[in-house]
């Protein structure tokens, strides 16, 4: 139970970071951290199907698609 609380706090920290970073690559990395911790939390709550979906989508695809979109637009938030 304490473990879930620790992981939730870590996820909140990463989410707040994703909101406040001006460097969008750092924000994307924070999003990847949120997805990772969400996957571990689903796993701890005994939902391996959802954890696997979160892992498969969040590990590579979203990060890469965001990075390509940043390459096509601009790196720093104005």
């Amino acid at each position: 139970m304490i473990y879930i609380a620790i992981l939730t706090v870590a996820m909140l920290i990463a989410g707040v970071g994703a909101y406040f970073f001006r460097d969008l690559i750092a924000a994307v990395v924070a999003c990847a951290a949120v997805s990772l911790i969400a996957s571990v939390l689903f796993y701890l709550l005994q939902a391996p199907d959802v954890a696997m979906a979160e892992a498969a989508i969040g590990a590579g695809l979203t990060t890469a698609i965001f990075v390509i979109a940043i390459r096509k637009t601009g790196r720093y938030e104005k």
Partner: protein
Amino acid sequence: MRAFVSFSVLALIVVGLALSLSHIPFGNSTANTDRMHVAKYYLNNGVKDTGAPNLVTAVVLDYRALDTLGEVTVLFIASLGLGIFLSWPKKEGSEDDDKRGLPPASLIVRRGSQFLFPLILLFGGYIFLHGHLTPGGGFQGGSVIASAFLLMFLGNTGYRLRQKTLAVTESLAGITFVIIGLIGLGVGGYFLNNFLPKGSVFALFSAGVIPILYAAIGLKVGAELAGIVANMFGSGSEG
């Protein structure tokens, strides 16, 4: 000011949701109406009805298979919209993007991606073919397959996918899904009826049509997501 307004609206929505949901007895079977009735039915009869030990698969592809068809269609529409948006004809004078050579990846990344590509494809196939036995299924396996193509795009500059192959794969998988549903309608009386023999539980070829449907969904999702990735890589850049 704008941030404050949006935060207060969000807080209002959260408080309203919490207030309206607070007196619903989720999972409380001692209340006068049993809200876990359906869940209990699935837990007790799921394996007997569908032959799939993974009850999530039993719900997704047997009890609620029509919703899954809708889900796959939503993903198809998203992929189609992105494809149309990114293949919009560009203005004159902006066509030198492709000639601007990208630096090639290092030898380790190049060879490593080529070595890992078939293995990751095999892993994705394993995930969606064992969807009725282990966690995972068509959506997860499809995203793993799309990740393999993403790895090839990242490791090899100038790697291209033929959009026509992707489109044919995706269409064949979707047609397979609908045809199996129609055969079920003809044999058993309702759409996506599980008409094949269930087999023995925990065997690979068991659970009737569920492995076939999951293979179709896996190929369809994989082709759609790989198409999204190919579209993102294929269009020019400005950064």
